[in-house]
């Protein structure tokens, strides 16, 4: 098992490249932006630090996948195209070591990026507004990092499965567009096909599970445990038949599902989903990579 060597090399290479620092810069800039928005939109002074966390979670749906995809989609196919994979595999690394080492290496890069970016922005929050609840901050930070790692798994899986950078990029962008724009519509479509009507204010439990099976839906689920409220989708499609003036308290999940929340709709299940998104695409990518000619 030499995956750790591959991971270490990969991390060191990323640190040398401008990529890591570029991503940190983007993330910090994004957090500062969130902060400015939070300060300007907060109507009551007491709500500001919670508002900052909620907004962070909201915008993380857009920025975390973007950062993780950029950091990960060339992990394997980039080395394939430059020929350094021929060097790497000329030493006693198995193809499994390469794919999983890359996953660990890129996950570390993303985790460090998100941790540095988050730390800077939390410092800003503490300085400009007031210290938010540290447990919530730690929870949201963990959720963001987990989210980043799960998208990194998807990115590395894509990267291992294809033979050209262009195809990797197309799949990376395509999958993110599906998660941002199409997934919830698909879930509603499946619901309509099964039950004969679009989901309303209340719906079957499995419909909500379906929505939460995307990495973004899963992240919202986890993040909601730490921001003291609902994290709305970044792009609202308006497919569900919900009266436009419904108060937001009514949109909380426990009000929309009859009876007790099943286990698969609890917040922790989102973390399980995220973990699966990290592992399964990497595994599929490895299984394809294992059989391919370089």
């Amino acid at each position, binding site marked *: 098992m*030499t995956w750790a*060597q591959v991971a270490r*090399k990969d991390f*060191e*290479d990323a640190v*040398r*490249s401008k990529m890591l620092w570029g991503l940190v810069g983007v993330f910090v800039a994004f957090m500062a932006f969130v902060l400015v928005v939070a300060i300007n939109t907060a109507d009551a002074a007491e709500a500001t630090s919670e508002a900052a966390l909620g907004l962070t979670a909201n915008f993380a749906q857009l920025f975390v996948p973007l950062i993780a995809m950029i950091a990960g989609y060339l992990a394997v196919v980039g*080395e394939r195209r*430059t*020929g*350094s994979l*021929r*060097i790497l*595999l*000329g*030493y*006693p*690394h*198995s193809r499994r070591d390469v794919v999983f080492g890359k996953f660990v290496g890129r996950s570390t890069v993303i985790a460090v990026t998100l941790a540095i970016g988050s730390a800077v922005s939390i410092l800003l929050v503490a300085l400009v507004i007031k210290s938010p609840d540290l447990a919530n901050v730690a929870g949201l930070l963990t959720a963001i990092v987990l989210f980043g790692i799960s998208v990194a798994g998807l990115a590395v899986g894509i990267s291992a499965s294809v033979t050209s950078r262009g195809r990797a990029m197309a799949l990376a962008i395509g999958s993110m567009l599906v998660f941002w724009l199409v997934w919830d519509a698909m879930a509603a479509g499946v619901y309509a096909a099964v039950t004969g009507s679009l989901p309303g204010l209340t719906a079957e439990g499995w419909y909500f599970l379906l929505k939460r099976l995307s990495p973004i839906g899963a992240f919202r689920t986890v993040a909601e445990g730490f921001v003291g409220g609902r994290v709305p989708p970044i792009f609202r499609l308006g497919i569900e038949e919900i009266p436009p003036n419904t108060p937001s308290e009514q949109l909380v999940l426990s009000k929309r599902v009859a009876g007790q929340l099943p286990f698969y709709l609890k917040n922790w299940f989102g973390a399980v989903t995220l973990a699966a998104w990290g592992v399964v695409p990497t595994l599929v990518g490895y299984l394809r990579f294992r*059989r391919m*000619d*370089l």
Partner: protein
Amino acid sequence: MAAIRTNGLTKHYDGGIMGADVTAVDDLDLVVQEGEVYGFLGPNGAGKSTTIDMLLDYSRPTEGTVEVLGHDAIAESEAVSERVGVLPEGYGLYDRLSGRRNLEFAIEWQDADDDPAALLERVGLGADDASRPVADYSKGMTQRLGLAMALVDDPELLILDEPSSGLDPNGIRLLREIVREEADSGTTVFFSSHILGQVEAVCDRVGILDDGELVAVDTVDGLREAAGASSTLELTMSNGVTADIVDAEGVSDVEVRGPRLRVTCTDSRAKARIVADLLDSGHEIVDVGSESASLEELFAAYTNGTAVEESTDGADGADDADEPPQDETPGSEVVA
């Protein structure tokens, strides 16, 4: 045990709907003995790199088996990598890292304790160069570093794919020295080239690959002998001559270009006799030159069929204006 043994090795590329199907390597039985320096020769596109890719499990055979140092190349590719030093074709190093760091990674990955400085010195890379990022390297420097990385942990088998590409004459000389040193210390060396001169200088045996098939395996001398083109006599006559003034014995080909005669001899003793015969029969010789058969001709003899004939065909029609038309048909001047 052979260092490399392939059995019925075949690599077929399916061209899909639009492309043509290609058989890059066709039923190849290759045996490289332990301790020998084996030159794997062939024109570009003959299938050399495809074969090497399959030895290293970079690509998978369509059919056949590959054994390297007794290990199955696919099932035990890690065991192969542990014992083999590789300079593959079309490789890239880690551009952002320094040359030394690249080498340090190679040493770490090979679980070896080599001294990076000693290896760098061996391939002629200075300390200044070694601390620069590889992105700044020339092709020749990259190739030297690649060679150093292949030498890590004193491998039992060195597989070098076109190792001289990008090297200047000094680099090529250094490469030759390193191959000799490694061979002397018992390392098996397998290297591919499309340039005969480099193979000739260091190889115990040569295998010629053409169109995915091994067309000849022998020593360089053996190949030269078998190809029947041992040496060439160049004569400049005082006036125009025809090919039939040269006696056929010990001669495989006579080429006429105006007053110049190019006689290819299978037996080098024929040269003196030809000169004597011509003088005896009253021809005046202005100049005499002699050379060993060019390796390109030898190479072509194996890869194109009868290359000696082919090399003369093109020139004849243009140059032999003074010859009777019936003598211009290809092959008419081939005496032997």
